[in-house]
């Protein structure tokens, strides 16, 4: 049984009479001890997928199809109480916007203690000590002082590390981290990534990491899912995705990485064209076809097939052959 199994998940947002298809038939599995990266276009549904896993969807979201199983238990059919029980020891989340993780009027210390409510055997003092130790683990130098501060009194990167500490305090089976290191300098980012790797081996917990930084993917992920227009357009082991990307979107994405371009470029490469329309009715053809340099006529009219390229390796494309 997989730790996490998402099958054919589809989700819409209703806003002002418009229906946005934010996730379309998304499937992925995560095994215990694995680090899975989710990369892709801005607005392609990565944070939405994370919100489903964590049960934090806004009111205007509606799951129209699919199942999300954590160790076999379907999250979506579970009553609220059962879902809450899964949070904490089950799933913990590092949000893209660390300001959202904390209540602005309470100190960091108070909140880190409250987050540990599932640890019924520990006193508040024990929990405060755990919190302080965890802040030190994520590289905060004066953790005792940090506990006394309010969220707005921390720099962006300190807030981000406090949010990571908050999630790790739950010792979750599955950690979902949405852009966890964007506010950190690369030396601190490297320290955090190594910490996550170590925790993964210690607890056999799995990590799903959402990032735009392909360097982070290269450093820590075992497998990668690439999203475009609400779909997973390619999945595979990190080495294959980096060295032999199959989907034209993945290829274009890797080519745009400024880290891969030597010297000083006068202009940075971009993928020409616009993001795909997600409002219903979504066109039938491939979402990437209008921007794809290799598009065939059928790409614009027929939905692309999911071509299996190997075990846990596939691409959603008319042009790819197995």
């Amino acid at each position, binding site marked *: 049984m997989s730790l996490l199994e998402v099958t054919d998940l589809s989700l819409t947002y209703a806003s002002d009479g418009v229906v946005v298809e934010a996730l379309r038939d998304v499937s992925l599995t995560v095994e215990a001890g694995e680090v899975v990266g989710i990369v892709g276009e801005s*607005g392609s549904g990565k944070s939405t997928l994370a919100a489903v896993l964590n049960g934090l969807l806004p009111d205007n979201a509606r799951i129209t199809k699919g199942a999300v199983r954590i160790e076999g238990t379907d999250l979506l059919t579970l009553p609220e109480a059962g879902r809450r029980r899964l949070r904490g020891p089950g799933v913990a989340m590092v949000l893209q916007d660390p300001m959202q993780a904390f209540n602005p009027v309470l100190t960091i210390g108070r909140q880190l203690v409250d987050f540990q409510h599932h640890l019924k055997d520990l006193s508040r003092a024990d929990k405060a000590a755990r919190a302080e130790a965890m802040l030190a683990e994520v590289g905060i130098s004066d953790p005792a002082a940090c506990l006394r*501060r309010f969220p707005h009194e921390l*720099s962006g990167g300190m807030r981000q590390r406090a949010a990571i500490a908050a999630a790790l305090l739950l010792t979750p089976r599955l950690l979902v981290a949405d852009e966890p290191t964007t506010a950190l300098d690369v030396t*601190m980012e490297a320290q955090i990534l190594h910490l996550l790797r170590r925790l993964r081996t210690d607890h056999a917990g799995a990590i799903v990491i959402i990032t735009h930084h392909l360097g982070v993917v290269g450093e820590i992920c075992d497998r990668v899912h690439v999203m475009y227009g609400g779909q997973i357009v390619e999945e595979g082991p990190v080495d294959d995705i*980096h060295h032999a990307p199959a989907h034209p979107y993945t290829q274009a*994405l890797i080519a745009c990485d400024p880290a891969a371009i030597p010297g*000083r470029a006068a202009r*940075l490469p971009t993928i020409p064209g616009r993001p795909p329309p997600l409002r219903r009715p979504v066109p039938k053809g491939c979402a990437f076809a209008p921007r794809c340099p290799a598009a065939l006529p059928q790409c614009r009219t027929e939905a692309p097939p999911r071509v299996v390229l190997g075990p846990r390796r596939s691409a959603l494309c008319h042009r790819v052959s197995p």
Partner: protein
Amino acid sequence: MTAVLGARDVAIDLPLPGGFLARRQLNILSGITLSVDKGETLALVGESGSGKTTLARAMIGLLPVSAGVLEFRGQPLSDPACRRRLRTEAAMLFQDARGSLSPRVSVGNAVIEPLAIHRRPRDRATAGRMLAKVGLAPEMAARFPHELSGGQARRVSVARALALDPALLVADEPTAGLDVSVQGEILNLLADLRRDLGLALVLISHNLAMVRHVSDRIAVLYLGRLVETGPTDQVLARPAHPYTQGLIAAEPNPDPRKRRDHPAITGEIPSLIARPRGCGFASRCPFAQDRCRAETPTLRPLAPGREAACHFAETMTSQPIRETIP
């Protein structure tokens, strides 16, 4: 030519948080001397908590300096008339893009709001045109901030900051949370504005690859002090400060075959409240000697346009960096 923005020996203190100590001031930055010319991009890099955002806020007049002078086109920011000018001629992109947008103002109104406040001409199509510049569809105008993805919110804040054609833009992590293609679009847009309108840009970023492509000069901060400044290409090719060297070596590699087993730099960043004696970087520096823990290095010239604050800067630049960028 006077610089668009100049900082001379600037220091900034912030109130120390908490309890009865609330009135005490904590020194965040000091000895900051920098300038940005018309059409120039200065990259400000540094570890988390080193004071980049604090400096950025002071640069556009949102925070007073505690010592030294900040000037906009030769006028001190302490002058109210200069601060009034800044309000239309300078803009800031905030690190927290979504938080900088009011939750109840639609995207369309948010981007034209600066025009409305300053009574500039605008019509129904203006918002759509401004959104198109940052790669957003016109129908996004009806959305509210909470209905945007992280990257979409970031793009809206860019469109808003550029509404008044500023002469100076202070951009705090303008591309964090954007996919690399959109990131390229935003940076190319800023490059066009530099070329066509002479925009002076202060770019705060953790992304060295990006800094390498878009900035002319680089200033590296550590614990609220400048540790290195110079032309970007020279600093990245031959860093003079071990922290700069560490940044370059720690840059994560997208190729999983080049994955490293140990982080290049380890250890804790000292706290500002208990600033260490000697060099602030000594606690994490692989080359630290006794002298570094006793004597604070000052920022000193190394070559024309280059400065560094390390006792061993000359040795540093003569060594090859351990892991080079492509």
